[in-house]
């Protein structure tokens, strides 16, 4: 009887041990979300401080706090830039569910903190 219990307990422990913890995927920070090709991939088009091999389709992302009145306006822009310029080639990240609202906020937080003087890798 006790052996049955022990076996049962061991099995239970084994099962718990094998179940992957929820949220296995490490949380990306704002910079990672902006740089990652499967996420924002903003470097495809923009130069961003410390970002390697950027494209040159959009303007360099610096001085954003002087370009937008507040951070929420930056979030709104990234959600759907076609609202501001229907001809733009920048994808509507929020509207087309490329990024979640939370991810866009994290990217905006990251971009907002970039000092304007920081070097841009060409």
């Amino acid at each position: 009887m006790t052996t049955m219990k022990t076996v049962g307990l061991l099995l239970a422990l084994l099962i718990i041990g094998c179940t992957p913890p929820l949220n296995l995927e490490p949380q990306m920070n704002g910079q990672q979300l902006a740089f990652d090709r499967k996420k924002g991939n903003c470097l495809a088009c923009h130069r961003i401080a410390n970002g390697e091999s950027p494209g040159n389709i959009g303007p360099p992302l610096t001085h954003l706090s002087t370009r937008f009145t507040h951070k929420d306006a930056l979030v709104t822009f990234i959600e759907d830039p076609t609202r501001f310029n229907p001809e733009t080639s920048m994808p509507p990240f929020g509207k087309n569910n490329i990024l979640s609202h939370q991810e866009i906020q994290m990217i905006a937080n990251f971009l907002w903190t970039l000092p304007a003087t920081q070097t841009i890798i060409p």
Partner: protein
Amino acid sequence: MTKLLFWLLFLGLLPIAPSTATPLNDQRTLQQHFFTQFPTLSRQDFANGVYALDPDAKQSWLAIEQFPPYEIAIDRGKKNFFTPFKNGQRYQDCFVDYQQGISQHYPYWDLKTKTVVTLSQAINRCRQLNLEAPLKPTAGDLIALTAYLAFLSRDQPIAITIPPVPAAQVAYQQGKDYYHQRRGQLNFSCASCHIQNAGKRLRTETLSPLLGQTSNWPTYRLKWGRVGTLHQRFIGCHRQIRAKTPAPQSEVLRNLEYYMSYLSNGLPINGPSVRK
């Protein structure tokens, strides 16, 4: 009688053809647009796609051309071309002018079947006429045949015609609309990258202009590690923007090829070639 019918059709068409957006005007406007944007490039240069704009890429391409990786495909195509079918006929009986080069005339509007016919399809029509099974659009044997025929057409100017019948104009217009419509999760049109941002860089990739995008096919892509078709490249660009992919040789892609090739009229055929 048929002649009369033709003229009636032809004249009947004239009033509805708008004076500004005819295919010929599209072609002149677009070619002029790119000649102005890239004033140092000659008409021939545009046939080299991205190499015309990126000197580093051009250097590595010229190095690869020392031992062209598409040569095997040309040889295989040549062999296929002269191998008789079971009924004793050969491809050359279908394509009597092959020696002068025929690729520059494809795709064309077929008045009988009222559809755009690509070179790949014409090869399959020849097979069916001779009671052979058609080859799959991506079959190595078919790609090899088009490689051989492109090789025979090298330096011949692209010469696509759009006959003055409404259905042909519609096919051209569908191709044009497709090129300019946004699609996919990333919301791009072909024009967003290859007209609006031609010459700019997407990460490290320089974007080629629409002018000249059809001249170098089939092409050996380093990424594929083999010679592939224009329609496979189209499909790759659809994937990039997370869009639904049409099938190779589908009507959508044939009309797209018709539009794009017509706009590149006058540029030399230089396939098969090499791309990254």
